């Protein structure tokens, strides 16, 4: 009984830890900036693919090196996702601050593009992209030097021209430059990342309990990320600036805080955390273009239930949702009631919900009920800035 309880708790916490590490970046981007980033899942997916690439790199170096690929993969995933996030912020999001619904639609568009990108990326496409960026930014630079003000239509024409040329170059390469250019980097099917040997198996406690090392690793990683984010926001100079801009943008600008850089940094940080989350979930399953969409809705639920803008809220919400999901989904609750006399209807009720997908149904019903009493989440923020 006790063992079952501890086992259940552990599994719940480990689900919660995955949720939390995914939700952490979202909580920052949504809570501090008011941006709904639906591409968060795809940033995760990029992190996961980075891990896959890094592992393949380490494979070439031999078996002994392979065991430590994850320590290289973590920072690299962070970096890749953060850079993509940075580009996203500079390219799109910064025009949309204060309009959360618009950010939602725009980031969804980005997520579609990213999903298709990993499916069909090959060298021809990369060359095309480079050409596009070169032409567009080069052209804009030239325009800015020659014109006092660059009109909207000029940018539009420039963009259309660059896209046309880049697509043409890409297509030409794709068809004529041989397999090296036209072969997709990743297969359309899911790829697998093999965890290092020291993360296989688990820590045995007692007779039946086993804590898989991979899960333990994720819990530790989550705690480390939390500590890192907490330290960064509360103790570092940039963290102070981020908090200042969140609370009063114009005042911060008057005090000489570079608000644009702060925005970019905050978004990059949130995106980078998505990359780490992506790296972490490779330990649990295979990697595919749709990896992110499995997590994104749950992660948003964590943020909403916890209370937007409060990291503590996200932590508690993730753990509670994780534990409830596990207890319902694994049938532990149903078992509990089956053993008791007179509670058979209740047991039947919980048995009905004792699958992973049905557990989600139940958890959502609970969340809606919860929001009836606490519409602003567990830890409501006073003077909320995100209000559409």
């Amino acid at each position, binding site marked *: 009984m006790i063992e079952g309880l501890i086992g259940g708790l552990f599994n719940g916490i480990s689900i919660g830890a995955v949720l939390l590490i995914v939700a952490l970046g979202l909580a920052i981007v949504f809570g501090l900036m008011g941006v709904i980033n639906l591409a968060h899942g795809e940033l995760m997916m990029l992190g996961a693919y980075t891990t896959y690439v890094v592992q393949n790199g380490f494979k070439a170096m031999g078996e002994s090196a392979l065991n430590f690929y994850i320590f290289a993969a973590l920072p690299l995933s962070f970096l890749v996702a953060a850079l993509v996030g940075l580009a996203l912020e500079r390219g799109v999001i910064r025009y949309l601050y204060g309009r959360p619904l618009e950010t939602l639609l*725009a980031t969804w568009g980005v997520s579609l593009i990213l999903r298709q990108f990993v499916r069909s990326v090959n060298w021809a496409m990369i060359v095309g992209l480079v050409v596009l960026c070169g032409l567009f930014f080069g052209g804009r630079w030239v325009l800015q030097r020659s014109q006092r003000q660059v009109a909207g239509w000029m940018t539009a024409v420039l963009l259309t021209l660059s896209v046309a040329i880049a697509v043409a170059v890409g297509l030409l390469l794709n068809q004529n430059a041989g397999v090296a250019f036209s072969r997709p980097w990743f297969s359309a099917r899911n790829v697998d990342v093999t965890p290092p040997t020291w993360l296989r198996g688990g820590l045995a406690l007692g007779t039946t309990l086993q804590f898989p090392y991979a899960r333990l690793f994720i819990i530790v990683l989550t705690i480390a990320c939390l500590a890192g984010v907490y330290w960064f926001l509360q103790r570092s100079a940039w963290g102070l600036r981020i908090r200042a801009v969140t609370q009063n943008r114009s005042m911060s600008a008057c005090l000489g805080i570079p608000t644009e850089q702060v925005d970019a940094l905050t978004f990059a940080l949130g995106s980078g955390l998505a990359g780490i989350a992506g790296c972490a979930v490779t330990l649990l399953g295979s990697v595919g273009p749709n990896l992110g969409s499995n997590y994104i809705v749950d992660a948003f639920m964590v943020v909403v239930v916890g209370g937007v803008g409060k990291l503590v809220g996200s932590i508690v919400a993730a753990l509670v949702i994780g534990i409830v999901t596990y207890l319902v989904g694994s049938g532990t609750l149903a078992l509990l009631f089956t053993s008791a006399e007179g509670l058979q209807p209740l047991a039947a009720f919980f048995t009905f919900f004792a699958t992973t997908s049905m557990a989600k149904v139940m958890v959502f019903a609970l*969340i809606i009920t919860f929001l009836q009493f606490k519409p602003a989440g567990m830890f409501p923020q006073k003077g909320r800035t995100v209000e559409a």
Partner: protein
Amino acid sequence: MATDTFVRPKKGRQAHQRLLVEVGLVIAIALVLILVIPAVVSGFRLGLLGRFLALAIVALGIDLIWGFTGLLSLGHGIFFALGGYALAMYLQINTLGDGELPEFFSLYGVTELPWFWQPFYSLPFTLLAVFIIPAVVAGVLGYLVFRNRIRGVYFSILTQAALVVFFNFFNGQQELINGTNGLKTDTSTFLGVEVGSSSAQFNFYILTVVFLALAYALCRWLTSGRFGRMLIAIRDDENRMRFSGYDPTGFKVLVFAVSGAIAGIAGALYTVQSGIVSPQYMDIAFSIEMVIWVAVGGRATLVGAILGAVFVNLGRSLLSESFPEIWLFFQGALFLLVVTALPDGVVGWLRYRLSDRFRRWFGRSRSVVTPPLLELDPDVGAEKREAIDKR
């Protein structure tokens, strides 16, 4: 020039005349769709068009709730699928002889028809269920959310979560509703005719056109009168309404329910024309895509919603026939383009930019100035900031 474009049409006779012209136009377009198009388009293309028109009906529902009322629902797939399932269940059990069960039940060892299938033996019940069930689901969900003044993005996120829940439910219940595989309708018979046959398909096409016209009329009526101004007021400043003595919750619940009902009808029409209803209709991506049709056409313009739905889907089928990989890139770019460069959509853009003649052509419905962005309004923003500072 700037002001006279906004002056409202003269009251009385002239407004009456305009209404007549509009009714005439709608009927004329419907007749063209029913009589002329089938003569010039192949059966396959006509089937596609019928499906797109069904999607245009959903788009009208989305426009009502998002374009006019400012509530972005990412869960309209629920209502769409519910309407489809209602009709598909009727078709499944009414094609069989007495005492027979739909085939899939035997796969999961179900020997008795589950209780909630029973009422679908009745055609009147089914026809009501097609729009009443989605309306009730939307109404309840809306009430629970709006009652607590959950608004804006929170509403969007919750509707999306609801969508995931319904998807999981329908996807996971193999023995109740055939789970992932969905329910097929093309081999069933409806009023003695096989649903998949070309004559039935043609009738469904006509029915779709008729319902599209009806849905347009309903939305037009809702958005033009005093109720429509209430919707715009909700979009502009919901909280202000409370101080004028209105309770926005009721209005929002009603509008969400109507929007859900419209989506339900669309779902049923789409289902019989595509031959299947499955949990895929509740895919997250599909529901967000509905939003983009409205955005491309122009939110808060009903014509825009219809045109957007038809043309985006047309583009999709053309593009994905020849280059399937490109469609997602294209769609993603469409999202970005609409949000950043074309916030009023194509019709909205035409309405404001083109000459008077064009405006009269497209702008029969009342013009609404740029979408509501409370946050961008410096005055409201100032008040909010002050409220925050006070704490």
